[in-house]
């Protein structure tokens, strides 16, 4: 069993959970994920690691209450235990010295991108971060992102029609100054929609844009193939070949998004998850 050592609400329905799992903490690297099961009848559900403390043997992640299991998680308190917790799964994010890195995050990504940014900072990159959130109250992790970046841009406002998203406005300005004020690399963590839109924006500029794909998973160790994504025409499994991929090499975003919603009607309780313009609704 894996005891919960801390559990805080970051915004309405958004929580950070810290779990004692020294085996996971010991090997965790930026961009990796864990799979947990709440109890013996629970599902295996993946979360990107948002931080860890190898000395204390703890791992944390941020989740949004959207379905049955995340609601169940929301009701747990420090001292309660998770039945299973396995990780760190997936390949770590690529981190090197690139120069100017622009990061875009929304939702769970605001927390999950933090270890990646800190590692990029250690490699002496200049980091501009765009945080997309509906409003200031739900712009969680803004302070931590500010500390981890050279500049933080808040992009507030609900996603509008046809998948245009508020993060695109500040990014458009940044790209307008490229290559005078060059962007050497992009990292995006957020909804599939956001990652797709950002990838399409940077494609004409040939700026390498890393996205962190979040397809449905079952085992998370390369056995089931539920998380397969088409990358340059080849099937790649997000759990062992990813979850980080070059956004310009991802093909079949429509299919990826549809697959992500296979069980949305059954396990996702929030109507707002049903994005407008998505082929599934």
């Amino acid at each position, binding site marked *: 069993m894996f005891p919960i050592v801390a559990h805080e609400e970051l915004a309405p329905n958004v929580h950070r959970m810290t779990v004692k799992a020294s085996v996971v903490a010991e090997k965790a690297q930026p961009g990796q994920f864990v799979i947990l099961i709440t109890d013996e009848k629970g*599902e295996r559900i993946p979360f990107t690691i948002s931080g860890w403390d190898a000395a204390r043997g703890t791992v944390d992640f941020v989740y949004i209450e959207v379905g049955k*299991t995340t609601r169940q998680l929301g009701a747990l308190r420090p001292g309660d235990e998770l039945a*299973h917790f*396995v990780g760190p799964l997936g390949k770590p994010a690529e981190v090197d010295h690139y120069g100017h890195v622009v990061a875009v995050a929304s939702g769970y990504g605001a927390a999950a991108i933090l270890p990646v940014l800190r590692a990029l900072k250690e490699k002496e990159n200049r980091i501009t971060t765009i945080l997309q959130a509906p409003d200031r109250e739900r712009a969680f992790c803004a302070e931590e992102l500010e500390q981890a970046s050279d500049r933080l841009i808040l992009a507030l406002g609900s996603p509008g029609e046809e998948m245009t998203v508020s993060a695109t406005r500040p990014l458009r300005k940044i790209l307008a100054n490229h290559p005078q004020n060059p962007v050497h690399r992009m990292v995006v963590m957020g909804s599939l929609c956001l990652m797709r839109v950002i990838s399409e924006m940077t494609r004409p500029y040939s700026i390498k844009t890393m996205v962190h794909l979040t397809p449905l998973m079952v085992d998370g160790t*390369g*056995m089931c193939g539920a998380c397969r994504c*088409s990358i340059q025409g080849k099937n790649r499994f997000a759990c062992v070949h990813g979850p980080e991929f070059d956004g310009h090499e991802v093909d079949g975003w429509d299919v990826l*998004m549809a697959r992500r919603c296979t069980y949305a009607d059954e*396990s996702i309780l929030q109507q707002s998850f049903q994005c407008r313009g998505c082929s599934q609704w």
Partner: protein
Amino acid sequence: MSETKETGPSEETGKKKVKMNLNRLEMPKQEPEVRRRNFDEVATGYTYEMTMEEASRCIQCKKRNCQQGCPVNIDIPDFIKHLQDGNIEAASKVLKAKTSLPGICGRVCPQELQCENSCTLNKKGAPVAIGRLERFIADWERTSGAVSKPELAPSTGKCVAVVGTGPSGLTVASDLAIRGHQVTMYEALHVAGGVLMYGIPEFRLPKEIVQREVQYVSSLGVDIHLDTVIGINYSLDELLNTKYQAVYLATGAGLPQFLRVPGENLNMVYSANEFLTRTNLMKAYLYPEYATPVKMGRKVAVIGGGNVAMDSARCAVRLGAQEVYVIYRRTRQEMPARLEEVENAEEEGIHFHFLCNPTGFISDGRNNVSAMELVRMKLGEPDASGRRRPVPIEGSEYTMDVDTAIISLGTSPNPLIASTTPDLETSRWGTVITDERGKTSKARVWAGGDIVSGGATVISAMGEGRRAASAMHEFLSQ
């Protein structure tokens, strides 16, 4: 109808004339119409009386062909003799001396190709139902509560790590524990048992039986660490450099293979691994009591002709599919699935389409599969496996409406361990290369099961485990 034959004096039976009883007893099964609607075990097992009657058919021939036909060399004539004497406990001890997983073997071994194929009575077409007898003994022991345990050798002080808790790993763990070594098993999933838990469905192998046999192995002093991925949490070298004198790799099948045709990633196109893992390991058939769902359409195509394809098709029927089609590119004769499972599937109303192969999947406009494009095939020249290679017939393309497809084409090895262990030699398919006793290219490391074979049966994985365990024991005793 009863049939008895007098046999003359023969090598097998000595001088005496023996009456051969050729009435092989069928095992009771749930009626197809009933079992299509539940996940309970299809074959309900022999009763005590049936067991005694079937056991009495064994002529105790001297050749012991059946034992030679068993990949783990069970002393079959001896346990049947004990049954004939009515001593089930003694029969159980004979079984347990060679297998720690009799309840599993009795159910899923292809006995018709092994022990029963070698049975002297098989010359008359009615081999003793050895598998059903084995199953009865295992079930009797489990329900009697008097689980017998072999005597453990005194502790050698040597530590062994077994990676993977499927049939091969469990065999090595119990063999080495009995010989006095301290064994630790590592399992990536949240329960032990590997393919016995995630792959083979409840109606063929109840999970309670798997867990009882796993518990039996742990009762021999084997530690089982769940939720631990070797290649991530510990590298193979870390295992070898810390606690363990030897390691056995039995990580199993790995990544599912796909057809590589357009539309294969559409919604409701499953790999058999995903579909079976949801259904069996995660118990999606009990959704919402269990939290993992599995979506099932009305008209389902299962692509492939192996046992996994049969399991997928039969799960689909039970999950409410109205029409289930098995699509196989060769003919019935080349199907790798066990005949018994094919017959069970047919009884349950599953349709078989032979000599056709999917060439693409078509979307309903919302990225859900709505139809499959196929081409008819014919058999050409034999390929490397000796089977005649299927070749497409030009101009024979057609489509078939389906709203669910399950791809069951086998797997390729999981790269996690090989990619973190540069000095472990692998084939170009990614399987681990070993000698005939399971020794890999890397010092102190053995391997067996699907990670070596690429995909075979439970019992062959156990047989490889048995051979590797004896080699490992020799090494540890040096």
